[in-house]
C-alpha cells in the first residue's frame, strides 16, 4: 500500500533473516483495529512467519474480503501487493490471481462472517479446486465491523452484546473443509504465537489450499462469558491436541527435538513439519480420524488446535490446469496468436 522511500532505521543488532531483512521490514500500516483485538496478534504472527521464511516481500500477494479481519492485510508486508476485495468473495478473486501467476506466494485473510455466511460457497469451491494459497480465517464468532451480530460460527447459547442468545448450531470451518476434500486443515488461537507461527509457515509451504481456522476473540463484541470465542472461555477450555513446528529444509534444529515424540510429514518442497503429538495416536494424514476427532471435541466442547489434516499428494489447481511456471502476463504474444495461416484453415469448416 505504501511506497514511501523512507530510510530504514535499524535497531542495533536487530536480527536479520537470510535476505538481510529485519522483522520490521515485514510490517505494514498502523492497525486501526480495537486495542487488544485478536486479529492484530494474527497479523503479527503472519509477519513473523514471512520473516522467518525469508520470503521476498514483493513475491507475496495479500488478499481479503470485508470485515475487521479483512482489513489486516494492510497491517503487514507493506511492500507486497494486496487486495481488499468485496465481502465474502475473496476466494474467487484469489483463485483468478493464483491461476494468473503461480510463481508468487498467496495469503488470504478473512473472517467467520466473510467466510461462513456470505462467502461459504466461494470458500468451499476454492478448497475443492485446491488453489495454492494460505487462507487464514480470523474466527471470532461475530460480525465485528458491523457491531457484533452473530456469525455462522457463533456457538449455541452464546449471547451477543445486545443480549440475544444464539440458537443455531455453529458451522465449524475445519469440519466443513475436511468434508469437501481440503488438503491442509489446521486450527490455532490468536494468543498462541508459538503454535500459530509454525502452522502459518507450514500452510505457506503446503502445495495447495491451506486453511487455518484461528480463534481470534473480538474484545469489543464477543469477549464476555457466554461466548466460547472469548478469551475467558478459550483459555478455560484451551487444549492443544497437536503442536506443530516447521523446520526449513537446510536447518539443523531438527536434532534438537526428541525423536521419540516426533512424526515427520514430508512437504512437497522437501521440507518437513514435525508433529508433537500429545495424543500419541493422532494421525494428521487420516481424514476420517480427523473428522472423528473434531466431532468428538465438539461433543466435549473443547477447542482442538494444531495441524488436523494434511495431504500432500493432490495436485494443486495450477498443476491440474497444466499451467507452467511462466506467469500468464509473460507469455509472448507470438505463443498466443496462431497466425493467419491457422485462421485460414480454421475457417475451412465454415464454407
Amino acid at each position, binding site marked *: 500500500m505504501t511506497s514511501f522511500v523512507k530510510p530504514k532505521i535499524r535497531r542495533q543488532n536487530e536480527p536479520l533473516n537470510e535476505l538481510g531483512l529485519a522483522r520490521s521490514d515485514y510490517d505494514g500500516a498502523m492497525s486501526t483495529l480495537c486495542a487488544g483485538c485478536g486479529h492484530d496478534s494474527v497479523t503479527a504472527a503472519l509477519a513473523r512467519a514471512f520473516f522467518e521464511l525469508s520470503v521476498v516481500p514483493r513475491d507475496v500477494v495479500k488478499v481479503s474480503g470485508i470485515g475487521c479481519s479483512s482489513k489486516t492485510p494492510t497491517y503487514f508486508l507493506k511492500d507486497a501487493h494486496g487486495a*481488499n476485495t468485496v465481502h465474502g468473495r475473496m476466494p474467487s478473486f484469489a483463485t483468478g490471481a493464483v491461476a494468473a501467476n503461480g510463481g508468487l506466494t498467496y495469503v488470504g485473510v478473512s473472517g467467520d462472517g466473510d467466510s461462513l455466511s456470505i462467502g461459504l460457497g466461494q470458500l468451499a469451491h476454492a478448497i475443492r479446486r485446491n488453489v495454492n494459497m494460505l487462507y487464514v480465517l480470523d474466527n471470532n464468532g461475530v460480525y465485528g465491523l458491523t457491531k457484533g451480530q452473530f456469525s455462522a460460527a457463533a456457538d449455541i447459547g452464546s449471547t451477543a452484546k445486545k443480549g440475544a442468545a444464539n440458537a443455531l448450531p455453529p458451522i465449524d470451518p475445519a469440519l466443513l473443509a475436511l468434508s469437501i476434500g481440503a488438503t491442509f486443515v489446521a486450527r490455532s488461537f490468536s494468543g498462541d504465537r508459538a503454535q500459530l507461527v509454525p502452522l502459518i509457515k507450514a500452510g505457506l509451504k503446503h502445495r495447495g489450499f491451506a486453511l487455518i481456522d484461528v480463534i481470534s476473540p473480538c474484545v469489543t463484541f464477543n469477549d464476555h462469558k457466554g461466548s466460547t470465542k472469548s478469551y475467558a472461555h478459550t483459555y478455560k477450555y484451551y487444549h492443544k491436541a497437536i503442536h506443530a513446528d516447521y523446520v526449513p529444509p537446510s536447518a539443523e534444529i531438527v536434532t534438537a527435538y526428541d525423536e521419540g515424540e516426533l512424526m515427520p510429514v514430508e512437504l512437497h518442497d522437501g521440507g518437513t513439519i514435525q508433529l508433537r503429538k500429545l495424543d500419541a495416536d493422532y494421525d494428521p494424514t487420516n481424514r476420517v480420524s480427523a473428522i472423528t476427532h473434531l466431532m468428538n471435541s465438539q461433543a466435549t466442547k473443547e477447542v482442538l488446535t494444531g495441524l488436523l489434516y494434511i495431504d500432500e499428494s493432490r495436485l494443486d489447481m495450477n498443476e491440474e490446469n497444466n499451467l507452467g511456471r511462466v506467469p500468464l502476463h509473460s507469455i509472448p504474444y507470438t505463443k498466443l496468436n496462431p497466425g493467419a495461416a491457422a485462421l485460414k484453415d480454421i475457417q475451412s469448416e465454415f464454407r
Partner: protein
Amino acid sequence: MSGPTINDFTIRVATVNGTGSASANGLLMKTIFRMGIPVVGKNIFPSNIQGLPTWYEIRVTGAGHAGRDGDVHFVIAMNPETYAQDLAEIAPGGVLMYDSSWPRPELMSRSDVTVIPIPLSAMCNEAFEVARSRILMKNMAYVGAAAALLDLDVAVIETLVKEMFAAKPKLIPLNMQAVALGFDYAKANFTCPLNFRTSAMNKTEGKVMIDGNTAAGLGFMYGGATFGAWYPITPSTSLMDAFQQYCDKYRIDPDTGFHNYCIIQAEDELAAAGLVIGAAWNGARAFTPTSGPGISLMSEFIGFAYYGEVPMVVCDIQRVGPSTGMPTRTQQCDIQLCAYASHGDTRHLILFPAHPGECFEFAAKALDLAERFQTPVFFLSDIDIGMNDWMVDELTWDPSYTPDRGKVLSREELETSASTFYRYLDVDGDGVPYRTLPGTSEKGAYFLRGSGHTKLGRYTERGPEYKDVVDRLYEKWRRAATAMPAPVVIKASRPARYGIVAVGSSDAAVKEAQQRLEAGGIPADYMRVRGFPFGEEVDAFIEAHDVVFVVEQNRDAQLLGLLVNETSADKKKLVPVNHYSGEPLSYRFVLEAVEDAVKVRKIA
C-alpha cells in the same frame, strides 16, 4: 412485397428438437451457400433438451441481404403439433411440404397455399431397419425432396454429405440413399422445380458461414486473452466452448505440454467475475461470457473493478428478460444495465458488434480497451448474432497487431524512476493512471480496494480526496469515447430529413429497410452506433436530422434513453421503434414501423 422468386424466398423447417434435424438443416443451408447464393439462417429453438417444437429458417437472398425477411414461403412441416401454426404463417403463394405418412386433409384448408404431401416416414421405415436411422434418415429425405422442389445442386449435397461423414464413410451411401428417396418421390409426383427456387450464382466467394459466439471465441484467442472464467448459461456457453476448443488446439506448448491459457468453470457468476478480476489484476488478459442474469449477479464485482480500475471484459450474449425470461429467444434488453451496472456512480464502456465478423474483431478490441482504460468493458451481443450462422467476409487478422496492455510499469521503470509510484495519480493528465503487477517490485506495491481511496492509493474517508478520484474516473470514461469504434453511417442517395439509429443485430434488418424505404420514397440516413460512451458523431447525426428513428430490440427504449441522457440530442426528435417478441428482427417490422410513423407525422 418481395419474393417468392428465384433466389429470393424463405424456407422454414418445423421439427422437434433432439431428432437430429439440426444437421440436415445445416446441410440444406450449406448447399445453397456452396451454390454461391447468399443465405440467412435463423434457429428458433426451445429451452429444453428434447421433444419440443423447433424451427429453422433459411432465407435465400440473391440480393445478399443479411437479415430476416419476415415472410415464409416454403415450409417443411415435420412436427404435427405445430402444423396449424406453420400453415397459418405461410405467405400467400407459399408452399407447405409435410410428412404424409399420416395424411392430414385439414392442411388443404388454405386455397392460397400449395400443399405437397411426401410420405417420408413410410419411405424411410421401408428402406431402413434400425429405429435410430429411420428417425435420422427422415431428415435427409426431406432435404432430398427440397432439393428437387427448389432445384438444389445434388452434387453439392453429395460433397457435403461426404465431408460430414468423412469419419464414418460407410454412412455416406446410407444418407445419400435417403436423399434420393425424397428427391425421387418429389420428382415423380410433383412438377419440379417450383416457380420460386434456387439458381447457382457466385456471390459467396470469400465468404464464410459462422456464428458470433464461435467468432468471438476465436477473437479472444487471437486477441491474446490468457484467462477465461465463466458459469454456463444459454446463450453464452458456446462462446467459451469455442475458446476452449481453439486453445486446446493452438495454445498447448508442444514441447512442455503446458497450457498458454487458463479456463475455469466457476461455481456461479459472482465467482466468474471475481476470477476474471483477480486474474486481470495479476496481469492476465481476462474475460467472462454470460447473459443477463449473470450481469445482475456480477453487479457488485463490476463496481469494484470500476472503482479499483481493474481491466475486465464481460460478454453479455443477451436473451429475453426480465429474470429467466425466454433463454433461447433474442433481445437487446441489457443495454441500460451494462451502461451503468452496479450501485453508486458507475459508468462503463460498451462495444456493440453487429455480426460475427465484428465479434471476431471486437473481442480483441474489448481486451485492449479494458487494459488501456483499466475498467470493465462490455461486449454486448445477443442470441441472434451469437447462435445463428451468418454469412460474413472470411475472417482475417492484421499481422501487425500487438495487444495494447495499457500503462503497466515494469520493474526497471519502477526502480530507475526518480518519482515515487502512486497507483491512482493522473501523471499524464489523460485520466488514466499507471498500474503495476504483483511481483514486479517493492516500489510498485499498492493496495487495491473498493473502499474510499486517495489519488495516492491510500484509504480515505475525506470528501475532497474521494472526489479527486471519482472525478478523474468520470473524465477517463468521457475520454474513452474517442477510442471506441466509430459509428457506421449509410447515407440515403439524396438529402434526408429522417435518420435511423440502431446497434448490434438490428443492423441487417435496418439496412434492408433503409434501402426499401428509399425505394418507397422515404429516404433516410442510417447510423449504426458501435460503442458507448458515444462520440460527437452521434450528436452531430441526430442534430442533422429532423426525426430520428431509434430501432432496438427491447420494450423500454433503452438505447434511446442513453441517447437522451448521454448526448446533446433533443429527445423530441427521437422516435422509438421497439421490437421485443424474441424473434430476430425482420426488415418488414422496421419498414412498417417507420412508414406508419411517417404517415402519422404527415397527417399531424
